[in-house]
């Protein structure tokens, strides 16, 4: 169920270049289950910025009713978010959208989790849930350069982790797809979140029997009412049929929508 709650900031710390991890506590956590769902965050009380910001849920902690978001300090909204200190509050709407179908993966099956930049955060909760179910988890995460790398150790708790950087300053030089080509394993499931060119390459590469991709689009409402975030479906790429990234997605099976 979607709720709106003024959550309390438990912690907000920088974990890599321009990357922050914020832990928020609130009853809204009770409704969070699926990795890949997102929250719509009001970063300031006043009129500017006016709209909420969509940020993926990176980790859910049911026991102490807290969840984590990880974001890149980028424009006005995320810069204001980076200034929040523990004890302050943030207005959160969520959980929104449909996440990765973690329950579809059977114990013993293999899942490759691919994250690019700020597409890495939702992979953390996903890896946690899959590993808990006895799924073999392989994470492939890509960044611009060494300073931007995060969550390598966190993901290593659930399985093998491969890191790439575009400039070669850490891990393997290149893109996540370079690793995928070499892995040699065909996974039962591939889950990916990151920049659109990366998602396209993964869709074309067919690295697993089933592939799920998490998309990004500029949003208004975040709940499916305003038609800001639509995309065409693959079966009708020029026609009237559509999916809303916010409420039908953000996670779609590869081949479902035009990316």
């Amino acid at each position: 169920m979607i709720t709106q709650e003024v959550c309390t900031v438990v912690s907000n710390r920088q974990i890599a270049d321009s990357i922050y991890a914020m832990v928020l506590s609130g009853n809204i956590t009770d409704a969070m289950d699926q990795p890949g769902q997102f929250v719509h965050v009001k970063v300031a009380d006043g009129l500017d910025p006016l709209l909420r910001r969509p940020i993926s849920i990176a980790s859910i902690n049911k026991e102490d009713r807290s969840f984590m978001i990880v974001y890149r300090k980028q424009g006005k909204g995320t810069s204001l978010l980076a200034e929040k200190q523990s004890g302050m509050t943030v207005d959160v709407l969520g959980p929104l959208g449909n996440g990765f179908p973690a329950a579809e993966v059977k114990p013993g099956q293999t899942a490759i989790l691919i994250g690019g930049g700020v597409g890495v955060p939702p992979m953390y909760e996903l890896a946690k849930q899959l590993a808990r179910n006895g799924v073999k988890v392989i994470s492939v995460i890509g960044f611009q350069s060494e300073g931007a790398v995060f969550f390598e150790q966190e993901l290593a708790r659930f399985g093998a982790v491969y890191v790439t950087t575009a400039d070669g300053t850490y891990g393997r030089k290149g893109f996540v797809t370079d690793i995928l080509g070499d892995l040699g394993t065909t996974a039962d499931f591939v889950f990916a979140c990151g920049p659109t060119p990366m998602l396209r390459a993964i869709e074309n590469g067919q690295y697993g029997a089933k592939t799920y991709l998490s998309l990004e689009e500029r949003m208004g409402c975040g709940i499916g009412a305003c038609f800001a975030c639509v995309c065409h479906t693959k079966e009708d790429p020029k026609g009237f049929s559509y999916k809303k990234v916010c409420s039908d997605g953000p996670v779609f099976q590869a081949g479902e929508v035009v990316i």
Partner: protein
Amino acid sequence: MSSLSIRLPGLNLKNPVMPASGCFGFGREFSQLYDLSLLGAIMVKATTPEPRFGNPTPRVAETPGGMLNAIGLQNPGLEKVYHEELPWLEQFDVPIIANIAGSTEDDYVKVAEQLSKAPNVHALELNISCPNVKTGGIAFGTDPEMARTLTKKVKEVSDVPVYVKLSPNVSDIVKIAKAVEDGGADGLTMINTLLGMRIDLMTGQPILANKTGGLSGPSVKPVAIRMIYEVSQYVSIPIIGMGGIQSAEDVIEFFLAGASAAAVGTQNFVDPFVCPKIIDELPELVTRLGADHISELTGRSWKKHERLAYYRP
């Protein structure tokens, strides 16, 4: 009797607060958040004869205190709205105002004729002011003669009262308002969005794929207030006011300017519970202003005075 219940042509409302067209879809999403029967009415998304996909994305861009949108009238088309969306809304005790759009006069007439027959549609809102489509829309809303003729044609086929939604993208709003009143409009809704643009410094290109979009949100409120203040003094049909409403205080300001009801658009995205919140807060505010009923406030900003002496239509 509640201090909020109002009567307008075709509309017998529990309260004067309703979501604005395009900001509430056909109600399905918000029905997960609260009981839609709390609302005074619902202005549903624009409907055209055929389904429309709308414009490419990005379709929204933020501005300080507002947003630009260029959705491009995406909607499932007349048949689906009539046979699926409107019947679904019948489970709620709330009158529907159907927003009608098109590219040609025939489009408007066709949609109006059919939607006005839906049992829960109590009024039509003729959208002659959408800035985001290439043909029709705003062209009808900026030419008084076209606006008058279109209103007349739609009135002829409609089973329910017709409200005409005015565009602020004109130099003389009163002239258009009087033209549609003359064409037989039962009421006005105003304002639609103001045409605008934002450019991305990184790419040097407009942010919106459509390049231009409609500005809405708190930053347009003074424009809406001014236009309603002017128009309400020169027409005798009621006005449903909108443009940047965020609070019960804002609703009151629209009433004082000359509105008889109010619609909330963009703020539904910022605070999805804004409509029920405003409805909750209004009665106390009405009392504080020394009124027994909210309708006493309509036009209070100018009623004591003579007509605007300087205005020359």
